[in-house]
C-alpha cells in the first residue's frame, strides 16, 4: 500500500500485522478492540490466512502458542480483563521462548471497570503479569500511524528475541481514525527457525517446553532468559523527545496522554518556559538511558498517566529522589483535559517563581 488510508487504530494494527506476514489471528470479543477481530475475520480469507474466534481468551493465546511453535507469525488481541486471562499462556510462551504479538487496548480496571480508555495495565504489562521471573517487550503507540508501525516492529522484535511482545494502547487510540500509511517489511523470513516444530524431517526431533525438572537445567534455563532480558534492556529502549532541550520542567507521558501534553509544552515554550515532553515508546524496557541524560537540566518532573500512578514508579527508579516528581492521574476512564495539565504546570512554575 502506497497511499494513506483512513483507519482506526485497531484496524491499522490488523492490516499492519497482515502486511508483516501474520496470517494466523485468534481472538475473543471484548470492547474496545473488536475492530481487530472484525477486520481479521474479513481479511484473513483474502490472504489464505486463518481467523478463529476462539472459545475463550485462554484458548486464543494457546492457539497462538501452537502456531508460534511452527515458526509462523501469529497475533491475538484483547482488552484488560481478557488480557488477565491470557497471562497463563504469556508466561508459558515467555519460558518456551515463543514469538507472539499481543495487543492490549486498555480499558478501566480492576474488574470489569469501564469500557472507556485507561492506562491501568502498565504494571501488568511491564512487570510480568503472569507467574514467574519474566518480562515481555511492551511498546506504546501514540497515533494510528504508530499503531501500524509499532505492530510491525513488534513482530520483528518477537522473532529476533523469541519473546512475546505487547502493544499497549488505550481505547481512544483503538477507536480514533487518522490517515495512516501501512508499510510492508521485507525481512519477514530472516530469523532462525531451526528450533520450530515442523515434523522431524532430516533432523533430530525438536521439543518446545517450559518444564525443567533437573535443578541445574532449570537454573541454566532461567539464567538464559534473564540474559536475554538484559540484552533487550540495553538494545531496545525507545522514546520520543519533544522540545526537551535544556528542559527544566519535564513532562513524562505515553500514549494518548502524551498528545494531550504536547500543546501544553508548545504553549509554555512560547512563553519562554523551558518545558519538554519525554514520551516512552518502549515501556519495557523503560527508556531510562535517554531519561537519565535529560536529568542534568531538569528541576521538576511531571508524570501524566491515565491511572493511579504506575509508570511513575519507573520514573522514580530512573531519576531518583533528588528532584520532585509530580503526578497527574485521571481515573475511571474520563479523558484528561489540556487545562488539567496546564494547571499542574502552573503550580510547578509558581513554586519556582521567575526562576524557570
Amino acid at each position: 500500500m502506497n497511499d494513506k488510508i483512513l483507519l482506526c487504530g485497531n484496524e491499522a494494527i490488523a492490516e499492519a500485522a497482515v502486511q508483516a506476514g501474520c496470517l494466523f489471528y485468534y481472538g475473543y470479543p471484548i470492547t474496545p478492540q473488536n475492530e481487530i477481530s472484525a477486520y481479521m475475520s474479513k481479511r484473513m480469507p483474502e490472504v489464505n490466512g486463518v481467523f478463529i474466534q476462539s472459545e475463550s481468551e485462554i484458548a486464543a493465546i494457546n492457539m497462538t502458542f501452537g502456531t508460534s511453535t511452527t515458526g509462523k507469525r501469529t497475533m491475538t488481541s484483547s482488552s484488560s480483563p481478557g488480557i488477565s486471562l491470557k497471562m497463563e499462556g504469556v508466561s508459558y510462551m515467555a519460558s518456551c521462548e515463543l514469538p507472539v504479538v499481543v495487543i492490549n487496548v486498555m480499558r478501566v480496571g480492576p474488574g470489569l471497570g469501564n469500557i472507556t480508555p485507561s492506562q491501568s495495565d502498565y504494571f501488568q504489562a511491564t512487570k510480568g503479569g503472569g507467574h514467574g521471573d519474566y518480562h515481555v517487550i511492551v511498546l506504546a503507540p501514540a497515533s494510528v500511524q504508530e499503531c501500524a508501525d509499532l505492530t510491525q516492529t513488534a513482530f520483528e522484535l518477537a522473532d529476533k528475541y523469541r519473546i512475546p511482545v505487547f502493544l499497549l494502547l488505550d481505547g481512544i487510540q483503538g477507536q480514533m481514525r487518522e490517515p495512516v500509511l501501512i508499510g510492508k517489511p521485507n525481512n519477514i523470513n530472516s530469523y532462525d527457525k531451526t528450533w520450530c516444530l515442523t515434523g522431524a524431517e532430516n533432523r533430530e526431533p525438536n521439543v518446545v517446553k517450559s518444564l525443567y525438572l533437573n535443578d541445574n537445567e532449570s537454573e541454566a534455563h532461567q539464567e538464559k532468559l534473564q540474559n536475554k532480558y538484559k540484552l533487550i534492556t540495553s538494545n531496545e529502549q525507545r522514546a520520543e523527545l519533544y522540545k526537551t532541550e535544556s528542559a527544566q520542567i519535564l513532562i513524562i507521558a505515553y500514549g494518548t496522554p502524551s498528545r494531550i501534553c504536547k500543546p501544553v509544552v508548545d504553549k509554555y515554550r512560547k512563553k519562554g518556559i523551558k518545558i519538554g515532553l519525554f514520551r516512552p515508546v518502549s515501556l519495557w524496557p523503560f527508556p531510562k538511558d535517554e531519561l537519565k541524560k535529560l536529568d542534568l537540566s531538569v528541576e521538576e518532573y511531571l508524570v501524566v498517566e491515565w491511572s493511579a500512578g504506575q509508570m511513575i514508579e519507573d520514573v522514580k527508579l530512573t531519576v531518583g529522589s533528588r528532584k520532585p516528581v509530580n503526578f497527574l492521574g485521571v481515573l475511571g476512564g474520563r479523558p484528561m483535559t489540556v487545562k488539567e495539565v496546564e494547571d499542574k504546570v502552573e503550580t510547578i512554575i509558581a513554586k519556582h517563581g521567575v526562576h524557570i
Partner: protein
Amino acid sequence: MTTYTLPDEIRKIRSHYCPGCGHGILHRLVAELVNELDITEKVIAIAPVGCAVIAYDYWKFDVSEAAHGRAPAVATGIKRSLPDKVVFTYQGDGDLLAIGLSEIVHAANRGEKISVFFVNNNVYGMTGGQMAPTTLSGQKTLTTPYGRNETEIGPPIDILKILQDFKNVVYLARGTVTSPKEINKTKEYMRKSLQIQMDNKGFSLIEILSPCPTYWGMTAINALKHINETVVKNYPLGIIKDE
C-alpha cells in the same frame, strides 16, 4: 517366529512411570503407530500437564508441551499452521475433562483435524491421587476420603457421550490396556484416528481406560481386574461413533 522389537520412535531409557501404570504401554503404541504409518517426519505431538508431561523424553519426534488443559488449543494452532502434518494430543482426565473441558469441546465442535488420545485412569496421578472428573462414584481418593459422593460432587463425566452428537466429530472409541487382546483393539482405534486425520476427515478422540495401581491402592493385577469388572460398567468399551 515373530520377534518383537521396540520401534525407533521410542527412546530406550528407563521409565519414570509407576509399576503397573498404563502410560508405558500407550507411549509404545503411539510410537509403533507413528512408525507403521511412516509419519515420523511429519508428526507433531502435544504432551499434557500430568504424569505424561515428559512424554517427549520417550518419543523421538517433535513434541510441544501445553499448559494444563490447553493441548487442544495448542494443537489447533499447530494444525491450522501446518495442515499437512499429523497432530495429536495425549491428555489425562484432569487435563481434558476438568481444566480443559472448554478447549476439548470447542476443538471437537470446530472439527479440528487432530487426533486426541485421552488416558482415563479415574484419578490425578501427578499431584498425588486427587479426585478427577472421571473418579467413580464411591471411589476413595486423596480429596474424596469418604468416597466420591454423587449428590455433592456429581457422577463421573463421559466425554464420548458429550461429543457423540457433534456434527464435526467423525470417530469416537474407547479401549483399554488390560490384556494383549484389548491393547491390540486400542491400537487399531488409535490407528484409525490417525488415518482419519491423514485423510482430512475431521476430529476423532480415543479414550483409553488405564490403570493407576498407585493411587487406586491396588496391585497391578488387581488394577486390571478393577478396570474389567468395574470401570467398564461406567465407561463401556467399543466404537461409539464412526461416520
